[in-house]
């Protein structure tokens, strides 16, 4: 698309594009590389964003239940309410009866607790909003994690400091694998499973290695096998 040579007798063809279009065309071609790379990065950033993973976002609940008050303030053990965490895949949401163990006498006229009393009287379940929702193609079992020394805090964070409950981890597969590859970095003694603000009594690397042996935690090859979590 160069202009006809000067001095030519031929009448130069009319220019369709300005000469600078060449630069523009090149820029577009090379720019595409950056554009695609940027789109890839933006996509990755999007699926890992808190907007998608719902990490760190307190969820609206029918009752403004505060773990900070019950665990942090009153010192309840997680298992008082989440009774099936040690022997079931599901940690268990307390039956209304368990709320009423105390709230039959405490705060018994509080308007915030009206849904609890209504549920107790009618037998209708309280419809809590699920905070941790793993995809259905993931097999997850609470009891095995608790039995092998993965503390509540390791995944759920400082629940004793959450006025409303939010998801502490992003729950992406990469996050799961992070521990399945190196369990010794995270495991703690079973006695400290529900401890909040746990500090290892010594060197975690050494304690972790010992616990991995003691609790017969499988090696990383098995723990990262597809069918361990996708069955």
């Amino acid at each position, binding site marked *: 698309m160069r202009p006809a040579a000067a001095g030519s007798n031929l009448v130069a063809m009319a220019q369709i594009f300005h000469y600078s279009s060449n630069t523009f065309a090149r820029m577009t071609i090379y720019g595409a590389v950056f554009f695609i790379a940027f789109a890839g990065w933006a996509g990755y950033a999007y699926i890992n964003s808190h907007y998608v993973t719902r990490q760190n976002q307190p969820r609206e609940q029918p009752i403004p239940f505060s773990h900070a008050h019950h665990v942090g303030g009153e010192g*309840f053990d997680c*298992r008082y309410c989440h009774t099936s965490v040690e022997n079931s895949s599901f940690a268990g949401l307390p039956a209304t*009866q368990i709320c009423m163990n105390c709230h039959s006498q405490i705060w018994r006229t509080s308007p915030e607790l009206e849904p609890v009393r209504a549920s107790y009287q009618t037998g209708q*379940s309280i419809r809590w909003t699920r905070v941790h929702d793993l995809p259905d193609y993931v097999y997850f079992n609470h009891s095995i994690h608790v039995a092998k020394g993965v503390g509540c805090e390791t995944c759920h964070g400082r629940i004793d400091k959450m006025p409303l409950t939010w998801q502490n981890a992003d729950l992406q597969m990469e996050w799961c694998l992070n521990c399945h590859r190196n369990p010794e970095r995270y495991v703690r003694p079973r006695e400290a499973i529900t401890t909040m603000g746990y500090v290892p009594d010594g060197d975690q690397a050494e304690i972790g290695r010992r616990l991995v042996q003691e609790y017969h935690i499988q090696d990383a090859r098995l723990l990262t096998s597809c069918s361990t979590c996708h069955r």
Partner: protein
Amino acid sequence: MDAGQSRNLKNNRRFHLRSSVFLCGLIPVLLGLSGCRSDMQDQPKYIPLRPSSFFSDGRSERPLIAGTVARGHLDDDTLLETGKGPDGKFSDEFPFPVTRDRVLRGQDRYNIYCTPCHDRNGDGLGMVVRRGFRHPPSYHIDRLRQVPNGYIFDVITNGFGAMPTYSSQLLPADRWAIVSYIRALQMSQMGSINDVPADARTQLGLTGAPQERKQ
């Protein structure tokens, strides 16, 4: 501008038009693909506590019909299940030998389920009581030191006074383990230095000399 140029121009424009349509189309397709994940993400199956629109109470789980016996849970061991002996009275026996492991299990369960009211040492001044719940009697009063083991088991199982039943939170074996730990707590409050083996006394920062039993 002759016909050929005009056609070129048109072709050029058409090419640009097509590629931009392609690019514009690609983005919704990619977004649409990400929508496919929701089928696998939320499969049409019931997981624990997932609601159901099929049943009128909105639950996917069905409540058990009264009298349902799960396989292997016939619960025909009267002492284990009720704390009562063959004569129908509360038994002082344990349904199994009380070992160190059992007591430790009891301690573990006690600290989870009983401390909110009864406190760690059993004096009944737990956090919930301090918040206004009715004060339960201390374990260290004479009456409760005299009651048979089966009685304590029954209170955990069926509740007593303001105390609700704990049968949904504790299996019978764990309730018995708690009974054994409560007995240990009672002993601990009535103990004297004479109950401590001589070689363990230094751990308490005491000398090995026996002292008067204090009441």
